[in-house]
């Protein structure tokens, strides 16, 4: 009996601590570090993708998704044109470097500044619109950006080819592996990318849990109430859009290094659509949700793209061979199905929410057995 009481009491204390964020304090930073540490070995494992540099691509997209989730997850705004800001970063860095011979960091900062200004201005125009109007207007601006880049005014953007073969002087690449070479040191690009990723993601996380971020959540949860208690929702939406755009542009800067330039595909509706799919699939309610979505999406794509035959149990000892190439080449169908189901069951939870409740249930059961 008394055990019961003390257990509920301790559970209550634990829940309090969780709600107050005391224990959660370190969960996200540690999680991000673990992500960067484990991502590459997992991606590179020969039974999985056997393709370590793909971890770079995944990190870039994860940052892009995290930036997008400032809008969708924390503010409840759906943008159909977020790829535009990825493009600003990528093109900014690449244009500065190739067309004006600026140092990479200067170009990158210019790209971020342009993204910030454009995002702020667009935000001012569209922040007060209803969500459908908001989504359509973001799409329209992104279309305009794509059009301009494709027109290649003044030879700046390289038209449909984009800007290729661009690397800052301190990056070297050899047979697909990039190195950062600075001041006599040489180390894998992944570590720099990972460091920037962790810092940027932490900044997003800090913004999300700051008073500013909590006000965004209030706007998302109930705009009318938010206004009634004194939250200037328009202003918050504008700044949310701006922050989101800047971090997307930062992802774009990393993209420019990772992809050795900038491509018109950053500005397409497809890119903007993919990031929506990834974010919602992963779970917009959680900080790690969009990151999980990116991982699942890109991993599936890369895994299935050359997946013709399922050999069980192991390639060395083939007992069963199942020809799956035909079916799996339509993998997006199944991902779409998964997406629809997850939206219907719990629209903001996604795979990460499922995973969390799965882990939670498991934890409870294990504990229940032990006691």
């Amino acid at each position, binding site marked *: 009996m008394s055990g019961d009481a003390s257990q509920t009491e301790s559970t209550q204390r634990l829940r309090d601590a969780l709600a107050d964020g005391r224990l959660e304090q370190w969960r996200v930073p540690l999680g991000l570090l673990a992500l960067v540490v484990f991502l590459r070995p997992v991606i590179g494992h020969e039974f999985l993708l056997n393709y370590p540099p*793909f971890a770079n691509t995944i990190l870039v997209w994860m940052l892009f998704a995290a930036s997008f989730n400032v809008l969708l997850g924390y503010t409840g705004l759906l943008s159909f044109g977020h790829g535009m800001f990825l493009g600003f970063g990528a093109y900014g860095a690449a244009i500065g470097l190739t067309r004006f011979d600026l140092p990479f960091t200067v170009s990158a900062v210019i790209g971020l500044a342009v993204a910030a200004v454009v995002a702020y201005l667009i935000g001012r125009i569209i922040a007060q619109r209803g969500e459908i109007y908001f989504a359509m207007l973001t799409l329209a601006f992104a279309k305009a950006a794509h059009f301009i880049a494709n027109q290649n005014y003044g030879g700046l953007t390289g038209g449909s080819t984009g800007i290729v073969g661009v*690397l800052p002087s301190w990056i070297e690449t050899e047979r697909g592996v990039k190195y950062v070479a600075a001041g006599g040191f040489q180390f894998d690009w992944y570590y720099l990318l990972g460091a920037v990723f962790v810092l940027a993601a932490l900044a997003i996380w800090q913004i999300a849990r700051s008073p500013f971020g909590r006000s965004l959540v209030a706007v998302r949860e109930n705009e009318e109430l938010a206004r009634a208690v004194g939250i200037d929702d328009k202003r918050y939406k504008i700044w949310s859009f701006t922050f989101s755009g800047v971090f997307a542009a930062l992802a774009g800067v990393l993209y420019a290094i990772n992809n050795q330039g900038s491509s018109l*595909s950053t500005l397409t509706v497809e890119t903007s659509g993919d990031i929506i799919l990834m974010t919602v699939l992963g779970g917009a309610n959680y900080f790690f949700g969009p990151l999980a979505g990116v991982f699942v999406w890109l991993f599936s794509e890369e895994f299935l793209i050359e997946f013709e035959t399922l050999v069980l149990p192991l390639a060395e000892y083939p007992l069963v061979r199942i020809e799956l190439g035909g079916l799996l080449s339509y993998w997006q169908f199944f991902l779409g199905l998964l997406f629809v189901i997850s939206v219907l069951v719990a629209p903001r939870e996604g795979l990460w929410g499922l995973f969390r409740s799965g882990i939670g249930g498991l934890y409870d059961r294990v504990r229940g057995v032990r006691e």
Partner: protein
Amino acid sequence: MIAGCSSDSDDSGGQQTTDGDTTDVGTAGSSGPDELHIGVFAPYTGPFAPWGSALTTGSELAKQDLEAEFDVSITLSEYDTETNPSAAQERIQRAVTSDGIDMAHGGISSAVCGSIGSWASDNGVPFITQGASDTLTGESCQPYMFRAYPSNTMMARAVGQPMAEEADSWYLLYTDYVWGQTAQEIIGSVLEENGATVAGTDAVPGPGNQDFTQYINNVENSDADGVAMIIPGLDARAAASQLQNRGLHEELSVMFHQFEDQVMWGLNQEAASMVDLGPTGWINTVEGGEDFKQRVTEQGETDPFSRQYMAYVSTDQAVRAAMRAGSANGEDVRAALEGHEITDSPVNDIVPNSTLKWRACDHQLIQPTHVVQARDESEMTNDPYKQWFEVSKTVAGDQVARSCEETGCSF
């Protein structure tokens, strides 16, 4: 320095043994590598998928011939680039880092070629492309990128004079991306050099556009006597069928730039007969290579057209360069290709009595360029393979290629 010495030790799981040993051993001996791994980059999904399978067929044939001739084992891997430069770059990166390919060829759109070419060159991997934009061997040329097919300029110059003879004024419809934009400029200037005029130009969206109504309206209402369709692949097919629906093919001379007969096979023979002119690097009625055409027909999914030819030449030349160099090392292969004249290859049978040479200054394969026209419907045959078009003029490559100075290429 460039390749081999610092390749990651932990990235391959032991499956890909092709290059690790050969690179080290190969440089010493002159016998050449005994294993080569070649990546074929093409759209294997989406609307351009038939081009992908044609590239595979051509590569397979070359592999059979090469393995018979040399003591070498060639592995071909397909990589799906769709028509997306970002996807293409991801594929070449994976091909090199994960699968360990030694060299690569392929690419359909210029953006894809540029993307692969630049990445490959940054990483010291030889890449033979088939995209035709002049930029690929011009301002955007890359030290490890070679082109196995005539450039836009070569084709435009070959067709300029016949075009001027065919009609006095031309309307140019071009797809609004690098290939179309550059081709449009060259054809315009070539026409004027030959005394014809440009009645108007229109940038058409795409690739991937199916609706040409607006632009065909413009053509119809201009005073042009001919229309130049500078439109790639399946877009060209859609545009052709819409020209035909409007009855314009009877009123106007029609030119298809970088003509591919495969595009027209998707239409009926009546529509195909609208083609008055079209410059190309190869079609299956080019004299020679009967054996090659026969084998494509037997082994391929489509009848022989330019893409199997391109893939054959690319694969053949990549492997021969490695054998000559005695190494799969990128730097060595590059050196073996630059300036090489093809004299000892089945390619000489496919394109007989011609000079084929890898120019060192811009990495263009100088080769004959043809102008084709549709046969009369009654003379179009489908057996043993579709022969709907015939060569009306052939120009030697060095007569139409840009001079080294003109290209603006420097490595």
